[in-house]
Structures are given as structure tokens and as C-alpha cells.
């Protein structure tokens, strides 16, 4: 289709940009670091736009493919390509990178170059995860992306940042190393690390189940699924605003993406056999974590738990294996990328002014920050799944899929609409409405032009996706249908 390697550009421009930012050196050149970072982020986003424009929505095949031998000794290739499932995540990631660079523009005053570079490098690595078609290439990007996030949480995070950073790193490392063993096993069976070829590698039920559980640990930790979710609230609370944004908007999607790219197509029979387990865990995440979110007194923690609950929806959608569920889950992932990013930015706006994340310290913010209150309202509604926002499309479609699958599961899943509305709007009410809580709140300044720009950008995305989701779903159909057919056919006959 084209000779320009857009995917490679999407991966390496941010990484090289990050190295360039590092070269600006100490903090006295901070302004230069910021400018270079912004340019790299914008340029990195610009090269992803042709991916959407030139994408052939009718085809389920991988597009923009690139292939070059990397480590011939183990038959490892630098193989890239995207289908309708991965396309939007690359765009989302590149977009969020711009948001993060702007969000950290003023707040970050120490080690600016390192901060910006960490985000840019991470953005490139994450694009690599979404574009990789080789198992080892995927794994390498998957793990390497831990390093910048570890540093971001640990260097620029809150008071308990060390604990959070190390917990985050070890949890994810433990999961991904098990995945490495599964990848090695697949290599020994198929003599290839080609993810697409693995779809057709014959595997017995025992092997499939073991691989399935290795993937489950790796991706489940990353999603995160109940009961391995405990690192997320810690990491979110301690991370700087930019870190929380990337964590919620992109990093959580990696695990879910792994389920679609690895678990479902490579071990379809095990995925079918163990689907009830995943569905049960997902429902626990949706309902139980929803209640946990209700009890939070810290805004960031509340949104972190709400993320876990929303991601439970995503895994639920995947493992019901019908078109509504799977597409709804994918839309939910993209929507959650926008909405959670916006929620964390809003909390960041408040935190920058008050240095508190406690709901109790606020009240009556609308009196002093009306513009902010309006934006926050929109995002809170989107988080609760109000129609005409992006949150509604995904949740509603997954619920439809769930009802199709089993009425009672659909009913349980639908409780999220109540719970989500309860914890989000109750928080909103306590923070924004009511009497002005303190002198400090009375003295708050409304959002600056820079903050306005950020929130307006995200608001536009949230509304656009809520009102006209067609561009998002259009590209997915072919790939999703093919995946579902593949999972339905399975590898074993007769199916155990």
C-alpha cells in the first residue's frame, strides 16, 4: 500500500525525540526541553494520522506490514503490522502523549528533560507493543515500557512513591516473565515467533490451558483484574498527573490488548473453556470494585478503582465472544482512555492548586472555578456512562452483548451504570457543589488557557465518540469478525 514505514516512524520518532530531549541536559535548559518534547509529540502524532486515513476497513488482514530479520538465530523478526483492533490504540497513545507533555508543562520544574524524555520513550515503546507481530518483539516492548513508568512514578511521584513504583514493577515483571515461558514454549512447538502463525499452531488442551494461564497472569496483572489489582491504586495515587494519565489511558490497555492478540486467537479452546472464570473475575471487578470505589475518600484512588471496574467490563466483553461484547469492549477501552485521562487531569488541576486529593478538603469549587466545573461535569458524566458521551457507547454495547450471552450476566453487568453513576457523581457533588469549604477553596483560580486547551481537546474527543462512534467501530468490524470466527472454530475437534 505504501512504502513509508509509518509504524516504525510512530515507534521511533518519540523514542529518538526522547533521547534528543535528554540531550538538552540540566534544568536551566528546561524551556528548550519542553519545546523539543512538544514538537516530538506532535510529530509523533502526525505520523499516525496516515494510518487511519489509509487504513482499509474492509480487510481483516494486517496492514502497514513491515518485516526485517532481527535475530535470525532464534528466527526473531522485526515484524510490525496493525489491524482494526490495534489501529485506534496507536492513535490514542500518540494523542495522549501530546496531552501529557502539555499537562506537565508548568507543574514539572525539576529534571524536566528526564520527565519529558521518559514519557516520549514510553510512548514509542507502547506503540511498539500495539504494532508488534513477533512474540519476542512484543515482549521486549512490553517489558521495556516498565522502565520509564517505574522512573516516572518513583522520581516525580508522591510521598509513598518508592513503595508504589517497586510494587508496580515487580507485579508486572512477575506476570510478564511467565508469559515469556509461554512464548518460548510456543516457539519450541512452532519454530517461529510469528504471532499470526501461532493462530494455526496445533496445541493440545493441556498445553493450551497452561499457556492460557501464563497469559492470564501476565495480562491480568496489567489490566488489572481482581484479585491482582492492588498495585494500581498505589501507583495511581503516587504517580504525578502525567503518569496517572498514561497509566490509565494506555498502560492498562496493554493487558486487555494482550488478551485479544494472544489469549483468544492462540489458545481458543482454553479461552472458551476458561471463559466462565474470566467472566466471574470480571463481574467481581465490576461490582465489588465499584463498591470499593464508593468508599474512597481520595479522589485519585476513587478514579483508580473506577478504572479497575471499567476494565472489568472490557475483559467481560472479550470473553463472551460475541460481536457486541468484543466491539463494545474495544470501544470501552478507547473511551476509557479519553475519560480516565481527563478525570486524572481534572484531579491534577485541583491538586496543583490545593495540594490535596482528599474529597473532604473540597466543596463549592463551582463558585470559584465555573469553567473547570463544567468540564469536570462532562467527564464525570462520561465516566458514569451517560448517553451522548463516549462512556455510554462502550458500556451499553457490552451490556447488550452480555444480555445476548446470558441474561443474568447482563443484569449483573448493568449494575455498573448504577454504581458508576453513584461513585462518580457523589464525588462530583462533594467536590464541586455545596458551600465553599475553606478559605483555600474560596481563593482558587479558574483554569488557565493551557488547562482549558487540554480539557477542551479531551472533551471534544469524548463527545465526538459519544455522538458519532462510526469512525471507531467501522475499522473494527472485519478484524473482530475474523477473530470471533477463529475462536469459534477452535483448534481441537471435537471440542472438549
Amino acid at each position: 500500500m505504501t512504502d513509508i514505514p509509518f509504524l516504525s516512524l510512530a515507534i521511533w520518532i518519540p523514542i529518538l525525540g526522547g533521547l534528543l530531549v535528554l540531550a538538552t541536559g540540566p534544568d536551566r535548559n528546561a524551556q528548550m526541553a519542553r519545546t523539543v518534547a512538544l514538537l516530538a509529540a506532535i510529530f509523533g502524532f502526525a505520523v499516525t494520522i496516515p494510518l487511519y486515513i489509509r487504513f482499509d476497513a474492509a480487510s481483516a488482514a494486517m496492514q502497514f506490514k513491515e518485516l526485517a530479520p532481527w535475530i535470525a538465530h532464534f528466527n526473531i523478526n522485526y515484524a510490525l503490522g496493525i489491524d482494526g483492533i490495534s489501529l485506534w490504540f496507536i492513535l490514542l497513545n500518540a494523542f495522549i502523549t501530546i496531552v501529557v507533555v502539555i499537562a506537565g508543562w508548568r507543574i514539572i520544574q525539576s529534571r524536566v528533560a528526564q520527565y519529558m524524555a521518559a514519557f516520549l520513550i514510553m510512548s514509542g515503546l507502547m506503540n511498539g507493543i500495539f504494532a508488534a507481530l513477533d512474540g519476542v518483539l512484543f515482549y521486549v516492548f512490553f517489558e521495556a515500557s516498565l522502565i520509564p513508568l517505574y522512573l516516572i512514578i518513583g522520581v516525580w511521584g508522591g510521598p509513598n512513591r518508592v513503595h508504589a513504583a517497586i510494587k508496580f514493577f515487580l507485579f508486572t515483571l512477575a506476570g510478564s516473565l511467565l508469559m515469556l515461558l509461554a512464548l518460548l514454549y510456543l516457539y519450541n512447538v512452532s519454530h517461529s515467533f510469528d504471532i499470526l502463525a501461532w493462530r494455526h499452531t496445533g496445541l493440545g488442551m493441556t498445553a493450551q490451558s497452561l499457556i492460557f494461564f501464563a497469559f492470564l497472569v501476565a495480562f491480568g496483572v496489567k489490566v488489572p483484574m481482581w484479585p491482582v489489582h492492588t498495585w494500581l491504586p498505589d501507583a495511581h495515587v503516587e504517580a504525578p498527573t502525567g503518569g496517572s494519565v498514561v497509566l490509565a489511558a494506555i498502560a492498562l490497555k496493554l493487558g486487555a490488548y494482550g488478551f485479544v492478540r494472544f489469549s483468544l486467537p492462540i489458545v481458543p479452546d482454553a479461552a472458551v473453556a476458561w471463559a466462565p472464570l474470566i467472566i466471574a473475575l470480571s463481574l467481581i471487578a465490576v461490582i465489588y470494585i465499584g463498591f470499593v470505589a464508593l468508599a474512597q475518600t481520595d479522589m485519585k484512588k476513587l478514579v483508580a478503582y473506577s478504572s479497575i471496574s471499567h476494565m472489568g467490563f472490557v475483559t467481560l466483553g472479550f470473553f463472551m465472544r460475541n460481536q457486541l461484547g468484543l466491539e463494545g469492549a474495544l470501544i470501552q477501552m478507547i473511551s476509557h482512555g479519553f475519560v480516565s485521562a481527563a478525570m486524572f487531569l481534572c484531579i491534577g488541576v485541583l491538586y496543583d492548586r490545593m495540594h490535596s486529593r482528599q474529597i473532604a478538603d473540597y466543596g463549592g469549587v463551582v463558585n470559584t472555578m465555573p469553567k473547570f466545573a463544567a468540564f469536570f461535569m462532562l467527564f464525570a458524566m462520561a465516566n458514569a456512562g451517560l448517553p451522548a458521551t463516549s462512556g455510554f457507547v462502550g458500556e451499553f454495547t457490552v451490556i447488550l452483548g452480555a444480555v445476548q450471552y446470558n441474561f443474568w450476566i447482563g443484569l449483573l453487568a448493568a449494575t455498573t451504570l448504577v454504581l458508576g453513576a453513584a461513585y462518580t457523581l457523589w464525588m462530583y457533588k462533594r467536590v464541586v457543589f455545596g458551600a465553599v469549604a475553606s478559605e483555600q477553596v474560596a481563593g482558587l483560580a479558574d483554569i488557565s488557557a493551557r488547562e482549558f486547551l487540554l480539557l477542551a481537546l479531551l472533551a471534544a474527543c469524548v463527545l465526538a465518540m459519544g455522538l458519532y462512534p462510526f469512525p471507531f467501530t467501522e475499522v473494527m468490524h472485519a478484524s473482530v469478525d475474523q477473530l470471533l470466527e477463529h475462536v469459534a472454530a477452535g483448534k481441537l475437534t471435537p471440542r472438549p
Partner: protein
Amino acid sequence: MNFVAPELYPATAEILVALMALALMLATAFARTLAYALAQITLAAAAFATLLTLGADVNHTFSGTFVHDLLGSLLKLAVYLAMAIALLYGRAWLAARRLDRPEYYLLAILMTLGMMVMIDANHLLTLYIGLEMMSLSLYALVAFDRDAARSTEAGMKYFVLGALASGLLLYGMSMVYGATGALELPVIARAVSNQSASEPVLLLGLVFLVAGVSFKLGVAPFHMWVPDVYQGAPTAVTLILATAPKLAALALAVRLLPGGLSALAAHWQTMLMLAAAASLILGNLAALAQHNIKRMLAYSGISHMGFMLLGLLSGVVEGKNGLAIDAYGGALFYAIAYVLMSLAAFGMVILLSRAGFEAENIEDFKGLNRRSPWFAVLMLFVMFSMAGVPFFIGFFAKFAVLQSVVAAGHYWLAALAVVMSVIGAFYYLRVVKLMYFDDPVDNAPLQAPAGVQVILSLNGLAIAALGLAPEVLLALCAQAMRTSVITG
């Protein structure tokens, strides 16, 4: 008895180094300031000689006691490089402590010669002579700071335990000789595979051989000397101790076990399996509790050697050695990767030390990112590489050996290695945490000479570069094993 002059060509490098060692010995008496330069020239010349004689064919000389092959050449080149870098890093450190004496370089060169002989041995006695030459030089080096109690104590400990291990090895060799009637490794290999040797004697000998090899590699349960000696030895010597001898010890293991006794693989693989599992568990758990960075790196070294054994023990499956090249090649790759990382890690310790101050505690790395962002990022490379995180060479080292373990079907061992890697990641992360998350306590500027800083930078960058492009080295390691072990 007619005398045939042996062919000297395959041993060019050894002869050169031996002659240069004599020159160095003279220098210790007459030109004491030249010793360092002479040592470096020796290593460079030896590298040149080895490169000149590099080839894929296998040559034997000195009545079959000596072999010249690709495996030997590759290992020797790695040894020269490790020794040259170690001498460079150590020099200023030694000078600041008035230890920069020519005898140091003489011992280092003699030790290099010992390692070369070990690497090129094709005969049990050649192997033993090389080993002793290396070990005796090392004992003296460990005790080199003779006025420091810790250094002499470490030297004594190392000597006593090392002598015991040499004894075990020699005893094992005598039993192998008793059972097969041969000392030449290929002859032993033939005798063992023809089953013309008495098996019980052979197996008893094998136990002693494996014990001796394990001691020299520093793997559990023969690891007790490692932390004490690493900590007690002058840091410049620890740097030597933790790098090149590991390559020589790998050569010892490869020449003896897959080379000479591959027919007994089922037996020694089981022994190595236990040693590897014990090293992985003990090395990683004990490293968690360390405050001294030299001790931490010692325990981490034990776990790394355990990891390397994973490659050695998965070559032969059910009597077939179809996986052997990749497995042994993986172990060789691991050893080279470990030496590179270890050089950089101890190089950093030396970089942070200065006259009157030893950066021996992990806490001394606090706030390095504020003192020197460049060296902080290099140390970050080293730590993540040791933890096995991509894109660094340490990841592909772990990848290569894990691949052979999985291919051999030892899933429980692979799972254990993986779990222990996660535990191990914690103490590497702690160093990164100190460098990046904490503020410096000590704000003294780094004082290392420019040469050290440049080479240390290249060393750190090589860890990243080889992680991005490991193909050439991986292929070379496999090629070396293909020409040497399987046909040899």
C-alpha cells in the same frame, strides 16, 4: 624414542604471553613504571595473535595436550578484553591506595596465561596446570593489600578453599584416569562412550569433578567463599575476580563435561540442575539482604552463574544432543554478557570511590542521578540488564538459556528461574531507586580519570547495543560450540 618438534603455531598467543610475562618480571626489577603499559601491550598483542590464528578448524599440538579452536579463541578474546578493561579501571584506584605496584600487573598477566592454558586444554593435566596458574596468581592478588587485615583474610580463605577444590578436581581426574586409562579428553570421551570404562569409578570421579568446577564457577553449594572474598579483596581485584575467571571456569566446565564426558550427560546434568536451582534460590535471596554492594554483586554473581548452568545442563535430552549447540552457545553467551555487566558494575563502584573513601555500600549510590546523570543512566542499564529486562544484553542472555531449558523440557527449572528473577529484580531496582529517587548525601564530584570514564561509558553502551543487536554474538557463540564441542 624419536623426538618430533611440536607445532607451535596454534599456541602463538600463549607463547607470546609467556614471554611477555618474563619481560614483565624483569620490569618489576628494572623498569617499575612500565609495568602497566607492558601488561596492556601484552593483552593487545595476544589479542592480535589470537585474531591472526582465528579459524574454524581444530588444531591439536604438544602431543594432543593442547587444542586450538574457535571456542578457545572466542573465550580468550573475551578474557583479554575483560582483563584489559579491569586493569584500566583498577589502576587509578590502586594508585590512590599506594597499591599500584608492578607485581600487580605481573600477577594479572600470569593469571591471564593460566586462563589461556585452561581454555585451550585438551588434556586433564594441561587443564589442571592452567587452573593452578590462574588460581595461585589470584590468591596472591586477593591478598595484595597485605597490610589490610580484610584483604589478607580473604586471600587466606580463598587459598584454603581453593586448594581444597583443586584437590577435589585432581582426585576426580585421577579416578577418570583410573577408569579410562587416558588423560587426553577426546580419548576419554571415546572410552566413556564405548562403555569400556568402569562406570562406578567414573561416576565417583565425576562427582569430584563437578564439585571442583562448581567451586571455580562459584555456584551453590560451593559458593561460600564468594561473598567473603569479593568483599575482602581490594575492589580492583574483585573486579578481576568477578569477570575473566568466570570465562575460564566455563571453559573448564565445557572441556570437561560436554567435551570429555558427554556420554555421562544424564548424570552430570542432574548434578548441575541441583547446583543451578540452589544457586538461583540462594544467590537471589541472600542478595536481598546485603548492604555492601560488593557482597550484593557477589550473591548476584552466584545467581548469574546458576543461570548460566541452565544452558550447560540442557544440551543432552534422552541421550540425544540435538539441542546441545544452542544450549552451550547460550551458556557461553550468558558468560560473556555477565562479564560485560560485571565489569561495568564494579567499574561503577570504582568510579564512585576515591582516595580515603570506598563506595562499598549500596547507599553510596544515592542521588547519583543528580551528581552525574550520564553515569546514573549507565548504571541503570547495568542494573536492568542484570535483572533481565530488555533491551539490554542481560535479557537475551536469559532468553537464550531459558529457551534451551524449555526446549529440553525442564519446565519446573524454567519456572524456578523466572520466579527467582522476579525476586532478583528487587535488589537491582533498589539500586536504581537510590540513584534516581533519593537525594545525594555525598556531593563530591567524580574523580576518575578521563580514560576510565570513556571506557566505562563504552562498556555501558555496549550492554545496550548488544541488547539491540545480539545476533552476531549469539551466532558466534553457537558456531564456536558447533566446531569445538560436538565434533571435538
